[in-house]
């Protein structure tokens, strides 16, 4: 037992065992088995045709892009791609499922046996991926006469989402803490965003997470009885639901009770998990091979073709930013945590003329510039983006415009302080830095004569402060610099102000 486990053992009386099942909507144009659009939203039942409505007599035809995307996700998760794969029917009745079966994959999924590396508290850990399989999404139910299912007088079905392609990614029960679960989902989301197979918008349901949770006494080999948690639609929900469920199970076990194997739903409003089990709902999906679809035989060449479309993965990219630009690992980790952010960084480097091939270490000047970009992104830009409806993909400040600002700074045209104000204006208006600086007359005053004259006026106006300085009070210097900046509305070159102040003070 290592130190970490011992620490956890002291914290909690059971070992947590979890596996996640993540459903991801693939970012195709059309549905998996028909030509209806996959676009989110739209009036109810307007993205529907006889095929996805499951009218009598219709037949499915597989969208090739779905296979390519599923394979790409599988490869990004280090999976083996099946040479032979097929679809099966999963039979169950529910009003959101028009055919009363879901076309899915049972015993021969497209990808299996992969892994994903996470880091929690600085410790790396590998989580196994059992399988990645393709399936069709179901429709949506709206409940009439109540906010949710229970208590509704009737329900209404909208089949726009029916047939939107999904992949289900099933992890091994390797997850041992809530932090690991969250880290796993974050990393998975980042990887999927990198591969661009999904937009991973949890708020729109394009990434949905279920969890199998069980507890066991420390040291026990056998798994405890698990509960399957559903309906966790955000990272916060995942965290809260797992915290609730772990404590719920722990309390039962502490009281000598038994955990029921059941499906439980996270109720965000109530802040608790609720059993969905019903005696009418005996699960027997009666899987059998889908006779309306023929098998997939996947050649090496096909796999290679898809592999060639894989982008640089987050961990590789992070290493590159550390090695090439000397970014701190923490900063590089944050930047590469999202593909959009990492792409922004690379575009900015290019605009700043410091893009450097992988494996080459940039020179000091380039490193300095990259660091400037990184600092602005991690600070101001992220802060403003988080407070807005924008993201790195559609940031009002483009990478080119950010570099425009950094160039003005580097040339001494504006001060660091002015730059902050200019940046806020850029964010609000989308204009380039130069235009804002010119419009508002924010160009830094670097005329020595002009600044010297201002400095002299300030010294004359503040004899007592000058006396303090002479008496050795270094702080007085700061006040005088402040006065000079104030007099120039912040436009004076701070370096020059300092230099001239010192010169003038010495003259006194």
């Amino acid at each position: 037992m290592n130190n970490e486990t011992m620490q956890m053992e002291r914290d909690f009386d059971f070992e947590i065992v979890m596996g996640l099942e993540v459903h991801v909507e693939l970012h195709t144009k059309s549905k998996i088995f028909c030509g209806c659009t996959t676009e989110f939203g739209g009036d109810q039942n307007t993205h529907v045709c006889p095929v996805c409505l499951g009218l009598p007599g219709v037949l499915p035809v597989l969208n090739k892009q779905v296979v390519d995307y599923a394979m790409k996700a599988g490869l990004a998760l280090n999976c083996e791609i099946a040479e032979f794969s097929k679809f099966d029917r999963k039979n169950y009745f529910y009003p959101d499922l028009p055919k009363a079966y879901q076309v899915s994959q049972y015993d021969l999924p497209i990808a299996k046996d992969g892994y994903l590396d996470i880091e929690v508290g600085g410790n790396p850990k590998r989580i196994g991926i059992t399988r990645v399989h393709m399936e069709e999404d179901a429709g949506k139910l709206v409940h009439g006469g109540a906010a949710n299912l229970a208590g509704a007088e009737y329900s209404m079905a909208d089949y726009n989402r029916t047939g939107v392609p999904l992949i289900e990614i099933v992890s091994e029960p390797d997850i041992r803490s809530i932090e690991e679960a969250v880290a796993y989902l974050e990393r998975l989301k980042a990887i999927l965003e990198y591969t661009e197979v999904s937009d991973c918008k949890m708020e729109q349901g394009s990434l949905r997470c279920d969890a199998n949770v069980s507890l066991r006494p420390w040291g026990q080999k056998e798994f405890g009885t698990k509960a399957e948690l559903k309906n966790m639609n955000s990272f916060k929900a995942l965290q809260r639901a797992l915290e609730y469920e772990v404590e719920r199970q722990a309390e039962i076990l502490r009281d000598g009770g038994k955990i029921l194997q059941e499906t439980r739903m996270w109720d965000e409003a109530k802040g608790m998990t609720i059993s969905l089990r019903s005696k009418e709902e005996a699960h027997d999906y009666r899987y059998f091979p889908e006779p309306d679809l023929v098998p997939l035989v996947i050649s090496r060449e096909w796999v290679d073709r898809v592999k060639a479309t894989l982008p640089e993965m987050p961990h590789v990219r992070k290493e590159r930013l550390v090695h090439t630009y000397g970014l701190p690992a923490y900063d590089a980790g944050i930047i590469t945590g999202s593909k959009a952010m990492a792409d922004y960084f690379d575009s900015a480097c290019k605009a700043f003329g410091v893009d450097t091939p992988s494996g080459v270490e940039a020179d000091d000047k380039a490193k300095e510039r990259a660091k400037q970009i990184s600092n602005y992104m991690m600070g101001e830009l992220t802060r403003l983006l988080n407070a807005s409806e924008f993201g790195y993909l559609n940031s009002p400040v483009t990478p080119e415009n950010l570099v425009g600002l950094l160039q003005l700074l580097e040339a001494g045209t504006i001060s660091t302080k002015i730059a902050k104000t200019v940046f806020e204006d850029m964010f609000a208006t989308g204009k380039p830095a130069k235009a804002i600086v010119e419009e508002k007359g924010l160009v830094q005053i670097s005329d020595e004569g002009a600044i010297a004259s201002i400095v002299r006026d300030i010294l004359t106006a503040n004899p007592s402060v000058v006396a303090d300085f002479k008496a050795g009070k270094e702080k007085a210097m700061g006040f005088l610099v402040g006065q000079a900046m104030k007099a120039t509305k912040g436009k004076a070159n701070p370096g020059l102000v300092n230099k001239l102040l010192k010169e003038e003070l010495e003259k006194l």
Partner: protein
Amino acid sequence: MSLTKDEVQHVAMLARLELSDKEVEKYTTQLNDILGYAQRLQALDTANVPPTAHVFPLQNVMRDDCVDPSMAREKILANAPDEEDGFFRVPKIV
């Protein structure tokens, strides 16, 4: 292998069919007859025989990812037993 009435009830539940007691009785007898007849398959050694799911050995039948127009909602809803505001309406679920 013989099917009991309880199993027939369970199968009816899976298939969402409400059966009267008389029907349960009848189906229990008839399904046992048919399944009894099917028992003769067990006499065949099929250990090394692959299953046939499709008689014609097609593979990789796919279409390109192109959007086709969906169907007008009036047509989609035309056969609905119950509808409301563009939705299919169903009785309360629980």
